[in-house]
């Protein structure tokens, strides 16, 4: 006859017995919390603020972690295991009793902190309830993770490290996925790893929900409890499954489960080259792949040597290494094969409702009547949102659309330019579909490509000028606005602010005429003008290296003379817009006009 109970019939008494053994820990924990959360703020004459409660929560994490390691350490010592496992109590019953004891210990400490938190005032930036809302699931999941890791390992130090690794495993997996997205970006012209990553995290891999961070922003809801219950059930189920399969005879080894050992070796061996890749950003794609494989092989060998406590690894270890390499090569091949047909995709102009061209994936819309300000990621922004956004340019006239399509074709052919930059192109189709493309242009010495040729077509369309530089090219721009402030700074031999009486002396319409003349000239030349073309709306920050005739200066301030013109507009509902124009001597007409104003 089998015992079916998950709990021993004397679990209550066993738990009380276990808690009695923790008397010293309770005492020490309360002393630590009392000193750091209550006494120190009093001594330092600081009111007990959130910071001390948060410090207390961190201390609880540490104390619970230590206690879990101690309580599950019986799994890591042959003597202890021989004693406890020989008693008429199943492994699961023993684990359950340990979990209950630690849950009670945690609840008492967190409860004490919560009571203290009720007596303190919080500032408007942080609610302690939000902190507890995140900390409590972390503690619960942490206790179960400690149990799982305790079962998987045969050494308490390995269990401590393993608990941290397992607790952060979803983040590690995310880092690996992100790296694979970066590989996709490197292989496939026009794909954005950033956009794929954001989309993945937003739609598929909800790490914010998994770690309950989302609920600190959105507040408690039924989904909070659902997710908490789901995660705890999943972790407990895993603990149950693993405890049935544990090989007690391997207590004393670092890791007792071969599957977990190989899994963790591959995860860590993958993460290490990813961490190194941050310093290899200038290396080409092949170099990156080779570096990854070499560092992976080295890390994999060393991790396995540590886990096996031997420099001679098992045949299975080598097989898994081979398997990973095959997987990696297959991944590269499959990505290359499946994405290559999308690389050259360029829509027909007739299909397109509007196009965004720029270098920002962060889209911002200003507050308007009945509508708060809002920002979205590019992948998440609808066409309507894009059209009403404040910081991006969306083009919709046929002539401009045609010229952008030509520009796109050129970008597909060649991703080099005079300087390195990023270009985003998003097509909004009539049928509601959206196509995003992302190009990283690399700086090429003695660039001789044709991009400026197609670029010139685009930047000289009326549509481009009107959308990109409405202050200068939109006829009615000032009809519903007034200029509430004008400031002019001169930088030459000395800095000078010239704002006195400027409103009376400077005629904005004249200024616009001069700017239009200068920009018409600049755009007609279009020397290295890509950066200027993809900047945000009414952004006139024109760097000197945008001119072919100039050598690239170290900093913009190396220009001998320039004016900064700052204009503040006031529109409907007193909404203010601010714009600054950097006028160098290259803006010949405008510069001369400002000279006359200053004199």
């Amino acid at each position, binding site marked *: 006859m089998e015992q079916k109970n998950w709990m021993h019939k004397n679990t209550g008494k066993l738990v009380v*017995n276990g808690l009695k053994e923790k008397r010293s820990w309770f005492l020490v924990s309360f002393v630590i919390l009392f000193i750091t959360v209550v006494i120190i703020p009093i001594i330092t004459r600081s009111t007990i603020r959130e910071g001390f409660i948060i410090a207390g929560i961190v201390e609880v994490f540490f104390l619970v972690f230590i206690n879990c390691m101690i309580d599950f350490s019986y799994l890591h010592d042959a003597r*202890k295991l021989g*004693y406890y496992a020989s008693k*008429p109590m199943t492994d699961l019953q023993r684990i359950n009793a340990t979990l209950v004891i630690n849950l009670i210990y945690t609840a008492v400490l967190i409860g004490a902190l919560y009571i203290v938190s009720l007596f303190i005032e919080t500032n408007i930036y942080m609610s302690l309830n939000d902190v507890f809302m995140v900390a409590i699931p972390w503690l619960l999941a942490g206790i179960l993770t400690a149990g799982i890791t305790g079962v998987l390992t045969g050494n308490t130090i390995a269990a401590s490290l393993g608990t941290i690794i397992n607790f952060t495993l979803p983040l590690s997996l995310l880092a690996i996925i992100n790296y694979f997205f970066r590989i996709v970006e490197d292989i496939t012209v026009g794909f954005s790893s950033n956009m794929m990553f954001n989309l993945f995290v937003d739609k598929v891999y909800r790490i914010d929900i998994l770690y309950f961070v989302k609920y600190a922003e959105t507040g408690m809801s039924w989904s909070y409890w659902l997710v908490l219950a789901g995660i705890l059930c999943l972790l407990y189920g895993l603990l149950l499954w693993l405890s049935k399969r544990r*090989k007690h005879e391997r207590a004393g080894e670092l890791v007792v489960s071969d599957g977990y050992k190989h899994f963790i070796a591959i995860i860590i061996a993958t993460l290490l080259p990813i961490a190194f890749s941050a310093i290899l950003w200038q290396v080409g794609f092949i170099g990156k792949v080779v570096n990854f494989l070499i560092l992976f092989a080295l890390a994999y060998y060393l991790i396995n040597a540590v886990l096996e406590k031997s420099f001679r690894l098992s045949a299975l270890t080598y097989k898994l290494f081979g398997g990973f390499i095959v997987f990696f090569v297959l991944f590269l091949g499959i990505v290359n094969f499946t994405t290559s047909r999308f690389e050259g995709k360029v829509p027909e102009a007739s299909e397109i409702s509007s196009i965004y061209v720029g270098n920002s994936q962060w889209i911002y819309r200003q507050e308007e009547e009945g509508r708060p300000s809002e920002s979205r990621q590019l992948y998440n922004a609808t066409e309507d949102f894009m059209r009403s956004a404040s910081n991006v340019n969306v083009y919709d006239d046929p002539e401009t659309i045609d010229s952008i399509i030509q520009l796109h074709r050129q970008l597909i052919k060649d991703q080099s330019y005079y300087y390195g930059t990023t270009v985003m192109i998003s097509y909004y189709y009539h049928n509601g579909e959206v196509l995003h493309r992302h190009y990283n242009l690399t700086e090429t010495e003695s660039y001789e490509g044709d991009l400026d040729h197609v670029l010139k077509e685009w930047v000289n369309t009326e549509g481009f000028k009107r959308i990109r530089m409405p202050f200068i090219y939109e006829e009615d721009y000032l009809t519903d606005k007034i200029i509430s402030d004008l400031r002019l700074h001169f930088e030459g031999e000395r800095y000078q602010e010239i704002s006195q009486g400027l409103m009376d002396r400077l005629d904005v319409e004249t200024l616009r005429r001069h700017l239009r003349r200068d920009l018409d000239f600049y755009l007609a030349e279009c020397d290295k003008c890509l950066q200027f073309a993809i900047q945000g709306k009414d952004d006139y920050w024109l760097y000197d290296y945008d001119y072919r005739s100039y050598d690239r200066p170290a900093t913009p301030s190396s220009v001998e003379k320039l004016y900064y013109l700052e204009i503040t507009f006031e529109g409907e509902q007193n909404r203010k817009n601010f714009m600054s124009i950097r006028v160098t001597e290259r803006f010949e007409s405008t510069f001369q006009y400002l000279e006359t104003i200053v004199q």
Partner: protein
Amino acid sequence: MLRVDKLSKNFRSFQVLKDIHINANEGQIYGLVGSNGCGKTTLLKHIIQVFRQDSGQVYFNDQVVGERSEVIKDFYYVQDDLFFPHGSTLNSLFNFEGLLYDQMSVEKFNKLTTYFKIDPNKKLANMSKGQKKQAAFVLAMSANPKVLLLDEIVDGLDAVIRRKFWNVLIKDVVGNNMTVIISSHDLKELDNICDKVGIMHEGTIIKEEEMSSLKENLKRVQFAVAEDFEGISGDEFQIVKRIQVGKVYFMTLRGNVEAFRKALEERYQVLIFDELAVNLEEIFIAELGGAGYGTEELDA
């Protein structure tokens, strides 16, 4: 009856237990003896279900013994390398184990602590190795188990305490029909108390027999002959071991001693001939010698 049937276990690629068979009856003390590292402790840990076998089963009164089986509540294991929870005393441990064993007897506990003169309130960590062994034994006996597994229990104990141990154990086996499995290197100790012996070598039980039957099958003789002894053979006996001390020969035989004596007398002029008592140590050496253990010559 405790029965181990075809139990096998591999530690990775190394097979530590191979097709183990054991039969220990109720009210029987079963001695588990064997060469160093042969798997005695591992076998005991499989019987108590600390380790899980790859194949085979352990039965108690025809019920399968598993981690979750009811019958395992009647098993108690005292390991060689003792462990007691941090800061525990015999009293606190008795209270803890009282929550796990239904038959824990406070009367027996008090009686045994007095008999062994152990302070039940003294921290176990402060006790000597011998005292710890006694404490563990007291707890085991107080639990009134039906199956008691003792791993090297008398190792490191003085003769007086050993005698006390055996007194308590034999009384309980007789009185409560307890099955005891003892693994030990001290064969002389086991010789006096075991009803049955299982001899292990390299993960297998090479011999399992009632002690009386074992002693009947294996004989030991000493003799001296007038001539130079050049050996002897016969169908009804087999010489297992031969030692010469001066003119006197000591031989361990399997089979008929009388047939050996006749064969000897037919060939030699026998000056003295005596049949000696066989002890467990002789049996152990003979059996393991047959399995090729300890037969190497230093000069070989």
